[in-house]
C-alpha cells in the first residue's frame, strides 16, 4: 500500500432560502405578528395554544378559532445563552425562555434580553419587543424584555401597535427562512490520491482486490464487494465514449453554449466511466464507441480537480467495437 497523506478537505457552505406556504392557522398568526398583535388558536379542550397549532395535539381535530392574547407573559423556564450562535435572535448574551403569554395556555420559545443570568427567574414577567420592521414571521418578535426594566408610563405594549399602521391589509401567506450551514467536506483517502494525481496531470485509479475491477475515481470500498480498493493503477488519458447526451437546455452557470455533448468516457483500462464533455466536433457527430483523448488545460492552471481536463476530443481512430464497452454501460 502506498504511503498515505491526510485526506483533502475544504469548506462546504450550504445556503438556501426556504420559502414555505402557510395554512390558514399559521397565516393568521404571522399576519397578526406583522400587525404587532398575537393571536393563538383555541384547542378542542378550550386551551389556547400560542404558538398556534393546526391540529389539536390530543384529539387531532383541525383548529380554527383564533383567540387574541396579550403581549406580556410569564417565563415558564429559561436557559442562558452565553455565546450566541449565528442566526439567533440576539448577538449578545441572552436567555432562551418559554413564555406563556397572558391568555395563553401553552408557551412560546423566544429570547429574553435580560443582560445577565442573575436577572432571570422562572415566573418573571416579560413583554414583547417588536422588531423595527414587522413583515409576518416569528422574528417580528425581536425578543422579550423583562417588564421591570420598562420605564413606567411607557405604556403597555398593547398600545405600541397603534403607533404604527399595518404595512399591508393583505394576509401573509408565505414565509422565507434563510438557512446557512457551514461544513468541512472531506474527500476519502482514495479520492484524495486521485485528486492529488490530477494536480500532476496523472489519472490514478484503484483495483478491487476481489473482482479486479479498476475504479476511477477510486472508491473507499468496491461497490460490488464492499472491500477497500488498495492497488493503484495509473490510467492513460485516452478512452471510449460509452454513452452520451446532447445538452440543449440552458441553465445557470453553464460554461459553454448549447448544444454540446456530455458523455461517459471509459478510460482505457478502467471499469467505470468518467462523465465529461466531448468537444472538438459537431454534437451530432458524437457516437457510442467513439475514441477520445483528454484535452488538458495549461499546466499552470492545474489543481486538485478534474477541471484540469477541459474536455475530451475525438482522436480520429476507428470506433471501438461495441463488445469492448458493452459491460460498462
Amino acid at each position, binding site marked *: 500500500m502506498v504511503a498515505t497523506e491526510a485526506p483533502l478537505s475544504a469548506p462546504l457552505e450550504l445556503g438556501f432560502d426556504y420559502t*414555505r406556504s402557510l395554512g390558514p392557522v399559521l397565516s393568521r398568526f404571522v399576519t397578526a405578528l406583522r400587525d404587532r398583535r398575537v393571536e393563538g388558536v383555541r384547542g378542542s379542550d378550550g386551551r389556547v395554544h400560542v404558538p398556534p397549532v393546526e391540529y389539536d395535539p390530543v384529539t387531532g381535530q383541525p383548529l380554527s378559532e383564533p383567540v387574541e392574547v396579550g403581549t406580556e407573559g410569564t417565563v415558564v423556564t429559561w436557559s442562558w445563552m452565553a455565546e450566541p450562535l449565528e442566526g*439567533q435572535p440576539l448577538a449578545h448574551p441572552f436567555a432562551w425562555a418559554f413564555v406563556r403569554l397572558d391568555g395563553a395556555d401553552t408557551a412560546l420559545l423566544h429570547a429574553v434580553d435580560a443582560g445577565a443570568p442573575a436577572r432571570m427567574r422562572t415566573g418573571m414577567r416579560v413583554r414583547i419587543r417588536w422588531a423595527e420592521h414587522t413583515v409576518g414571521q416569528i422574528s417580528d418578535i425581536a425578543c422579550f424584555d423583562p417588564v421591570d426594566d420598562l420605564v413606567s408610563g411607557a405604556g403597555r405594549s398593547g398600545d405600541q401597535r397603534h403607533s404604527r399602521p399595518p404595512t399591508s391589509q393583505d394576509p401573509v401567506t408565505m414565509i422565507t427562512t434563510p438557512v446557512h450551514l457551514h461544513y468541512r467536506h472531506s474527500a476519502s483517502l482514495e479520492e484524495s490520491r486521485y485528486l492529488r494525481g490530477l494536480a500532476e496531470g496523472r489519472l490514478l485509479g484503484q483495483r478491487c482486490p476481489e473482482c479486479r475491477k479498476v475504479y476511477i475515481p477510486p472508491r473507499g*470500498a468496491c461497490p460490488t464487494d464492499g472491500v477497500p480498493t488498495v492497488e493503484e493503477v495509473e490510467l492513460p488519458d485516452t478512452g471510449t465514449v460509452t454513452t452520451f447526451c446532447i445538452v440543449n437546455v440552458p441553465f445557470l452557470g453553464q460554461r459553454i453554449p448549447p448544444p454540446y455533448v456530455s458523455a461517459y468516457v471509459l478510460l482505457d483500462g478502467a471499469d467505470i466511466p468518467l462523465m465529461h464533455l466531448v468537444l472538438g466536433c459537431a454534437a451530432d457527430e458524437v457516437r457510442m464507441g467513439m475514441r477520445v483523448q483528454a484535452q488538458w488545460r495549461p499546466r499552470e492552471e492545474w489543481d486538485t480537480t478534474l477541471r484540469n481536463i477541459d474536455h475530451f476530443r475525438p482522436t480520429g481512430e476507428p470506433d471501438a467495437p461495441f463488445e469492448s464497452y458493452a459491460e460498462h454501460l
Partner: protein
Amino acid sequence: MSGFPEVAVVGFGQSPQVRETTGTTNGVEMLVPVFQRLLTDTGLSRREVGFWCSGSSDYLAGRAFSFVTAVDAIGALPPIAESHVEGDAAWALYEAWLKIRMGEADTALVYGFGKSSAGDLHRVLALQLDPYLVAPLWPDSVSIAALQARVGIEAGLWSEKEMAEVAARSRADGVANPNAQLREPLDPAGLLDAPYLADPLRAHDCAPITDGAAAIVLAAGHRAVDLCARPAWITGLEHRVDSPVLGARDLGRAPSAGAAAAAAGIDGVQVAELATPFTSQELLLRRELGLADDVLVNPSGGPLCGNPMFAGGLIRIGEAAARVFDGSAGRVLGHASNGPLLQQNLICVMEGR
C-alpha cells in the same frame, strides 16, 4: 403474535467513538471494518444477509443522499434488499425486525453512522424543530435541553447534584469501554463548582460531539442459534411519539417513553441502556420508565462518554444485547430517541435463554 418468527440480536459492532474522523460523511471508512468484524464474528456471509437497513442524516453530512454512497461499504452486487431511515438507526432496526417477522428475510444487518464533526452539530439539530415558528430562531440543541433541565429542577424532579452524579457514574463506567470517546473518570467532588455551559447545564451534563458508526445483526429464530451462542431474543420492540410542539409539552415528562415501555413489557430488566445525551434526560427517563434502583443504567458509559448521532440509539440496543451475549444479564432494555427532548422514544427488550 403466534405464527410470526421470533427475532434475536445475534451480533453487535461499532467503530471507535472519536471527536473527529478524517473520513467522509458517508461513513464508509467507519463502516467497512465494523461490517468485516461483525460478519466474521457471526460467521454470516455478506451475500447471505437478507435485508440491509441504515439510519443516518443528510443534514449531518451536508449533502443529499449521503446514505446511498454508504451502500458501497456493503458491496451491493448482485443487488441487495436495502432500505434507509432518516433518523436513528434504532428505527432501521425496527424496520428490519418487521421484515423478519413478516417472513421476508431471515437475517438483517442494520447500521447507523454520523460524522457530527463535519458541521456545527448544535445548529444542525435546530433544523429538526418546527420550521415555521421555532427553527428560524436557531435554538441550539444544548439550549433547549437546558430549558428542559430547569423544568425538572424547579419541579423537584431532579437536582443539579443528581445530574452530576449521573455524569460521574457514566464517566466512571466509560473507562472500561474501549470504544468510548471519553475514557477519563470525572472527579465527583468539584463538578458543581464548574461553570455553566448553558445554565443550568454544565459541560459534564452534556454528551460530547462524536463521530462514529455501529451495526447489529438480527436473525430469525432458526438462524439465530447458528449465528450466536447466546442470542438476545427480542421480547418487545415498540416506539411512540409525543407532540413536536415543545411549548405545549410538559418538558419534565416523556409520556411516549412510558407508553413504549408499557407496550414492550420491561418488567424484570436488569440493565437499561438509555439514549440520554443529557444527565437530566437520564433522570427523566428513569422516572418515566419506572426503573427500580437496582437496574444498571448505561454500564457502557452511555451517551455521556460518546454520542455518535444516528448510531447512538442502535448502540444502546447493541450494548444491552452484549450483556446478554456475555451472560452477565438475562433481561435487558435498549432505548433510542429521535427528535428534540426525548420526543420520540423506542424501547427494545431482549432476553437470554
